[in-house]
C-alpha cells in the first residue's frame, strides 16, 4: 500500500466561533431551559433527569428511582455483593482499590466547623480517607451521575453584611454572603469597563445594597456571554413590566422597556460576561405597588427577578421571568485535503478487484515468494447493453480515507457516505474536517 504525504497547503488549522443561544423561563418556582417541558417518568414521577430547567451532564440515569450500593463486609471483595433498592436502581461507577491511588470524588462533601476552635474538617479529604481506610481490592464508588447544571438565583440582603462569631477567645468575622465577597475584587476590576461595576460609586455602595445574583454555569455559554446579547424580561400575569438589555455592550443592564415604564433608561445591574454572573440591584417598583408575594418583598423589583429559580423559594404564580443570552464558543478545526490525482489511487486491495479464479502465487520456496505478473483486473465498467461488456478501464471506488502519522501508524479513518468512483484520468480531492 502506498502512502501519500500532505503538502504544505493541505492541512489548515482554524477556529470555528459559535454563539449558542440559551433561554430560561422561570415560572412558579420551576425553570424551563429553552422552553423544554419537564418530563415526568414511569419511576421518577417529577423529573426523569432530576434537573430543574437545565442540562443533565451525563444524561445517563434516565427515570431512575432507588439506589445502588455495594455491601461491605471487612476486606472482602464487595463487587460480588451489589444491592439494588427501589423500583429502578441507578447506574453507579466504581473503581477497585489498587496501588494507583485512584478513587472517585463524591458529588457532595460534608464540611463541618468546630464551634469552639473554628477548625474546618471534612471536604475532599473525606473521600481520600475512604481510600486509606478500605482494604485492597475493595470497591470505591462515586456519585450516580446525577450531576446537572441550571441557573441559580440568590438574593443577598445587605450583600456586604458580616457576622462576628466568637470561637473560643478569638473573634471571627464571617461574611453573610461569601459569593458576593468572592466577586468584589472582580467587580472593582471591571469598573474601568463601566463605573456601575464598582463596589462603591457616586451614589451607591454595593456592600449595603440588596443584590440579586444570578449564576449561569459555564456549560451554557462557553468562554463568555456574548456582550449585547443579554435580555431579562419581567412579566406579571403575562404582561411585560420591565426588560433589561446590555445595549452598550459594556455590561450595564439598562431597562429598555416597555416604553414609559418605571425606571426606563436606568441601570438595574451589571453582567460579568466571563464569569457568567448577573448582579441586579435595581430596587424600583415594577408592579405599581401591587403585592404578588415575591419572597420577603411586597412588590416586584429587579432584586426579585428570577424568584424561584433554584433558590428554594416558593414564588408567586403571577410572575414569570425570561432570561436569555448568547454564549461564545471557539472550536479548533483541523481541515485536511487528501488529493487523489490522475494516475494515482487506482488499485484496490479488495479481493474482488481481481478476476475470480486466478492463481496469484507464482513461485514460493524457502527463499523465494513471487506473485504472478499476469493477474487480470476485473472490468467493473458499466455497460449500457445486454450481452456486451464495456471496454476495460482502470477504476476504483474510494470508500475510505485513512490518516497515518509520521511513523506510518493509523490514527484516523474518514468514511465516505457513498463510495466515489475514481477513474484513471480523474483528479479528486477529499476534504476532511476534524473538530478538536
Amino acid at each position, binding site marked *: 500500500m502506498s502512502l501519500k504525504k500532505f503538502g504544505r497547503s493541505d492541512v489548515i488549522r482554524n477556529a470555528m466561533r459559535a454563539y449558542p443561544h440559551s433561554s430560561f423561563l422561570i415560572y412558579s418556582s420551576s425553570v424551563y431551559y429553552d422552553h423544554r417541558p419537564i418530563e415526568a417518568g414511569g419511576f421518577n414521577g417529577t423529573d426523569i433527569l432530576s434537573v430543574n430547567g437545565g442540562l443533565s451532564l451525563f444524561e445517563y440515569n434516565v427515570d431512575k428511582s432507588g439506589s*445502588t450500593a455495594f455491601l461491605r463486609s471487612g476486606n472482602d471483595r464487595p*463487587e460480588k455483593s*451489589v444491592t439494588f433498592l427501589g423500583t*429502578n436502581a441507578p*447506574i453507579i461507577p*466504581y473503581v477497585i482499590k489498587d496501588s*494507583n491511588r*485512584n478513587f472517585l470524588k463524591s458529588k457532595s462533601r460534608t464540611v463541618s466547623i468546630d464551634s469552639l476552635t473554628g477548625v474546618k474538617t471534612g*471536604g*475532599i479529604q473525606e473521600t481520600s480517607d475512604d481510600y486509606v481506610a478500605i482494604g485492597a481490592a475493595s470497591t470505591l464508588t462515586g456519585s450516580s451521575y446525577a450531576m446537572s447544571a441550571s441557573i441559580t438565583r440568590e438574593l443577598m440582603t445587605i450583600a456586604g453584611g458580616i457576622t462576628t462569631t466568637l470561637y473560643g477567645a478569638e473573634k471571627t468575622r464571617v461574611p453573610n454572603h461569601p459569593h458576593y465577597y468572592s466577586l468584589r475584587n472582580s467587580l472593582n476590576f471591571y469598573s474601568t469597563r463601566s463605573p456601575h461595576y464598582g463596589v462603591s460609586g457616586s451614589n451607591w455602595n454595593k456592600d449595603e445594597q440588596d443584590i440579586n445574583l444570578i449564576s449561569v454555569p459555564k456549560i451554557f455559554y462557553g468562554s463568555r456571554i456574548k456582550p449585547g446579547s443579554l435580555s431579562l424580561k419581567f412579566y406579571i400575569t403575562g404582561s411585560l413590566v420591565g426588560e433589561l438589555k446590555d445595549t452598550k455592550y459594556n455590561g450595564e443592564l439598562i431597562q429598555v422597556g416597555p416604553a414609559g415604564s418605571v425606571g426606563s433608561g436606568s441601570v438595574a445591574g451589571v453582567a460579568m460576561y466571563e464569569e457568567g454572573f448577573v448582579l441586579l440591584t435595581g430596587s424600583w417598583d415594577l408592579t405599581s405597588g401591587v403585592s404578588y408575594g415575591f419572597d420577603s418583598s411586597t412588590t416586584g423589583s429587579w432584586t426579585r427577578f428570577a424568584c424561584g429559580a433554584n433558590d428554594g423559594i416558593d414564588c408567586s404564580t403571577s410572575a414569570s421571568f425570561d432570561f436569555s443570552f448568547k454564549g461564545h464558543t471557539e472550536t479548533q478545526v483541523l481541515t485536511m485535503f487528501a488529493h487523489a490525482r490522475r494516475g494515482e489511487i487506482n488499485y484496490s486491495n479488495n479481493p474482488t478487484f481481481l478476476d475470480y479464479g486466478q492463481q496469484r502465487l507464482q513461485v514460493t520456496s524457502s527463499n523465494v515468494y513471487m506473485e504472478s505478473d499476469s493477474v487480470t483486473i476485473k472490468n467493473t465498467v458499466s455497460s449500457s447493453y445486454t450481452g456486451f461488456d464495456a471496454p476495460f478501464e482502470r477504476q476504483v471506488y474510494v470508500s475510505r480515507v485513512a490518516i497515518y502519522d509520521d511513523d506510518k501508524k493509523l490514527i484516523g479513518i474518514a468514511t465516505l457516505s457513498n463510495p466515489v468512483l475514481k477513474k484513471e484520468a480523474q483528479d479528486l480531492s477529499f476534504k476532511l474536517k476534524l473538530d478538536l
Partner: protein
Amino acid sequence: MPINYEVINPNTDVATTKTLLHEVIPLTGTIVSGTYGTFPNDDNIKNYSHGMFQSVYDYPYLSSSANHIFDISVGFDESSPLSGSANSVQEKKKINMYNQFSQVLLGYTGSANRVRLFESDLTLDESVGNIMKETIFVNLSRLLTKDQIKKGSVSIRLGTGSWAASNNSSLAKTFTDSAATNNAGTLNTAGGDYGVLSGSTGVGGIVFYQAGVMILTSSIWAGTTDFFSASTGIRTIDKQLVSGSISGSADAFRHRLQNLQFNNTTEINSSVYFCRASHNKFNYSSNPTYLSSSAIRVKNQNRDNPPVSYITTIGLYNSQNELLAVAKLSEPLKKDPTNELTLRVRLDY
C-alpha cells in the same frame, strides 16, 4: 510567570498507569415491558420496517433524553430442524441473522469455509449436545458496555412459567457467568472473549464481553407450552421461532425478561508527573500580595523568620517554557525551607 523552572526527568519523575473504571448496570425487567405504554406497543420499543431486530430504550424513544440500551433479535442456523418448516415467517432473515452473528463473533471453519455454530461450552468442537442452533440475540449498547463487560458480573433472570405467570420469580431461571474471570473461564474468538451463562438448571447461553452480545439458547423455554400468547394463538418457543415474526419473538422475550445486570469496564490511561519541591525551592511567591513595603508579609518584618509560601497551583511547561497545563490543589500547601514536597499530578486521557 514563574521565576525559575524545575526540570522533570522523564526517567524518574514520569510514570504511566492504567486504571479500570467500572459501572454497575442494573436493567430491571419493568423497563422493557409494561412501564411506558401497553405491552407489546411500549413507547420505548422501536420496531423497524425491515423487521430484523427490535430496539429497546430506557425511556420513550421520541424523547431526546432517551438512551438506546439494547437490541433483540432471533435466528436459527440453516441446519436447524426449524429450517424449511411449513408456514415459516421471515425464515431467510432469521438464518441470515444467525449467520451474521456467528460470522462476526466466531468466524469460519472447515474446508468449506462455513460459519461456526454457537456452542454452550468453551470448546467450539461442534459436539452435538452443546450446539445452539436456535438462539435469541441481545445486543447491548456500547453506551452501557463501554470498552467491555466485566467478566464474572453478568446475571440474567428469565421467566419460564406460563405466559400469564411470566413475572413469577419462583418459575424463573437465573443464569450468570460466575465461572468467568480475567484469567480463566473464557474462550478467545474472532469476536473477542466469551463466557458461558449457566445456572442451576443448566446452560442458558453465552456472553461476548468485548462485543457486548448475549446469545441465549431457545432450550431455556423447552418446557414452556405458551412461550408466546396472543390473539393469533399460543405457541411454544420452537413454533414461535418458525411462525412468528422476529419482532413478535422479541416481544415474547421482553415479556419474560425479569432482570439483567452486569458491570462494564472503561480503561483510563494516565500519565503521572511527580513534581518535587526540595527544601530550598518554591519558598517564594511572585504574587503581588506576597510583599508589603518590599518585605515578605509572612515573615512579620522579622528577618530571622524563614520565608514561607503556600502552593496552590502547579504549571507544566514544555521545553520552550510554554505553559501546557495547570493543576490546582484542593487546598494550599504550606512550603518553607524545613520541608520537601512531592506533588503527584495525574493527567487522564
